[in-house]
C-alpha cells in the first residue's frame, strides 16, 4: 500500500512491491507531493508525463489497471493541450481548476480515512460485555432502526431459498443418457449372434430403469423395421427376440 514503492520499480526491485494506489486521484496526489509543487500551480506537463510513466510501468507489471486510470490520463492530456492554447481574451478560467478541486476534496477524504484508521487502531481490543441475562435476549432480534431495505431483501432471498429447498419440484426429468439408436444397433448385434435373445431377462437385469426402457423401445423398433420378431409363450414368461435375417435399415428409422 506504500505509494512511495513505485519509485523503487526502476531500481529493479521485485515487482511485488508495486503500489496500490486507490485510484487515479491517489496517484496524482502522490505525484504532486513527490514533486513538491503547489497544488494551486500544478506543472501539468510534468505531472502528465510522470502519470503516464507510472501507468506504463503498471501495465508492464501486468497489474490490473482500472479503467478510471485511463479516463484520467486522457483528462490530463486535455488539460495539458488547453494550457498550450492561447486563452481567449477576457477568459481567465484556469483549465486546471476542476482537477485542483477534486484533488483537494480527495485529500480531505484521505485525511479523514487516516483519522478513522487511528481510532480503529486504538479501539481494536474493545469487546462489548455480554453477561448472561435472566431472560436470554434472542440474538436474532433486531432493532428496527438497524433494518434497511437491503436486510429486508436479504431476508426474502433467504426465505425463498429455504422454500425452494423444502418444496423440491414434483418430478425431476433426468437428461437422456441412453439413445434408442445406439440400443437398436446393440440389440441387433446381440440378436444376430445369439439367434434367440432373452429380452425380458435382459431388461430386468439392467441397473437402470431408463436403460431398460430404452432397450424396450429399441426392441419394438427392431420388430417394426422387420429385423427381429418377438415371441412370448404365456403371460409373464420370457420374451424371446429372434433375428429374421432382414438387415438393419437404419435409414428407415425415423427421428428417435
Amino acid at each position, binding site marked *: 500500500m506504500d505509494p512511495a514503492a513505485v519509485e523503487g520499480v526502476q531500481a529493479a526491485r521485485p515487482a511485488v512491491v508495486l503500489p496500490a494506489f486507490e485510484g487515479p486521484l491517489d496517484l496524482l496526489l502522490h505525484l504532486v507531493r513527490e514533486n513538491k509543487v503547489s497544488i494551486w500551480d500544478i506543472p501539468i506537463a510534468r505531472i502528465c508525463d510522470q502519470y503516464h510513466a507510472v501507468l506504463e510501468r503498471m501495465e508492464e507489471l501486468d497489474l490490473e489497471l482500472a479503467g478510471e486510470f485511463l479516463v484520467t490520463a486522457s483528462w490530463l492530456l486535455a488539460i495539458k493541450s488547453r494550457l498550450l492554447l492561447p486563452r481567449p481574451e477576457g477568459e481567465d478560467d484556469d483549465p486546471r481548476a476542476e482537477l485542483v478541486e477534486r484533488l483537494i476534496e480527495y485529500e480531505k477524504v484521505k485525511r479523514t480515512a487516516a483519522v478513522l484508521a487511528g481510532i480503529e487502531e486504538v479501539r481494536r481490543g474493545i*469487546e*462489548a*460485555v*455480554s*453477561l*448472561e*441475562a*435472566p*431472560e436470554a*435476549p*434472542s440474538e*436474532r*432480534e*433486531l*432493532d*428496527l432502526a438497524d*433494518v*434497511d*431495505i*437491503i*436486510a*429486508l*431483501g*436479504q*431476508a*426474502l*432471498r*433467504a*426465505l*425463498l*431459498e*429455504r*422454500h425452494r429447498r*423444502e418444496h423440491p419440484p414434483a418430478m425431476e426429468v433426468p437428461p437422456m443418457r441412453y439413445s434408442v439408436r445406439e440400443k437398436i444397433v446393440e440389440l441387433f448385434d446381440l440378436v444376430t449372434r445369439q439367434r434367440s435373445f432373452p429380452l425380458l431377462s435382459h431388461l430386468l437385469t439392467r441397473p437402470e430403469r431408463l436403460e431398460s426402457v430404452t432397450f424396450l423401445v429399441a426392441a419394438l423398433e427392431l420388430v417394426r423395421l422387420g429385423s427381429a420378431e418377438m415371441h412370448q409363450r404365456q403371460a409373464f414368461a420370457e420374451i424371446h427376440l429372434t433375428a429374421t435375417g432382414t438387415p438393419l435399415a437404419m435409414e428407415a428409422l425415423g427421428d428417435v
Partner: protein
Amino acid sequence: MSETLRLQALCEAILAVAREPVVAEALAEVAGEGVTVAEVEAALEQVRCKHEAEGSGLVVERVGGGWRLATRAEHEGPLRQFLGLRSRARLSQAGLEVLAIVAYRQPITLPEINFLRGVSSAAVIRTLIDRKLLAVAGRKQVVGTPLLYRTTREFLVHFGLPDLASLPSLEEVEHVAGEGVSGT
C-alpha cells in the same frame, strides 16, 4: 499500573466476555509469563471484594470450580422489565420475514404467507399491524375470502422509499449485499 492491579483488571475483563465459568488456570495461562495460579486466585478474590461494595451491579461468583461475573440477584426485576421492554421494540426474525414477504408480494393473504414460511404467521402479522408497518388491504375473492395485507406509509418512511416501486429488486439486493444472506 501495578502488576497486581493489571492482573485484577485483566481477570475482570475476561470474566466479562467469557460465556461460562472460567478456571483460574486458564486465566493464568493468558495472563503472561510467570503469573501463577495462586496470583490469579488472589486477584479474582480482590475483584470479588471490589464488587461487594455498594454501588456495584455485578458480583464475582465461584461456581463449579470456576469463576464468573454475574448481575446481582436483587436487580432481576428491573432487568427482566428492561429486556421485555426492549424485545417489544424489536423485530424478530419471523417479523423480518413476514415484512419482507408482504413488501414484495403485496397484497397477500395469510395462507399464502404461511405457505412461503412453512409456519403460521398470524401472531407476527398482528404485531406488525400494531407497529403500523402492515395494514389490511381488503379481502381476496377466493373461497373463505381471506384478508389481504399490504405495507403502510410508515413502512415506506422507515425505509426511505417514495413508493413501493422503489423497492430494490432481489437481483439488486444480491448485487449490493452479496451472499451475506443470514437473514439478519
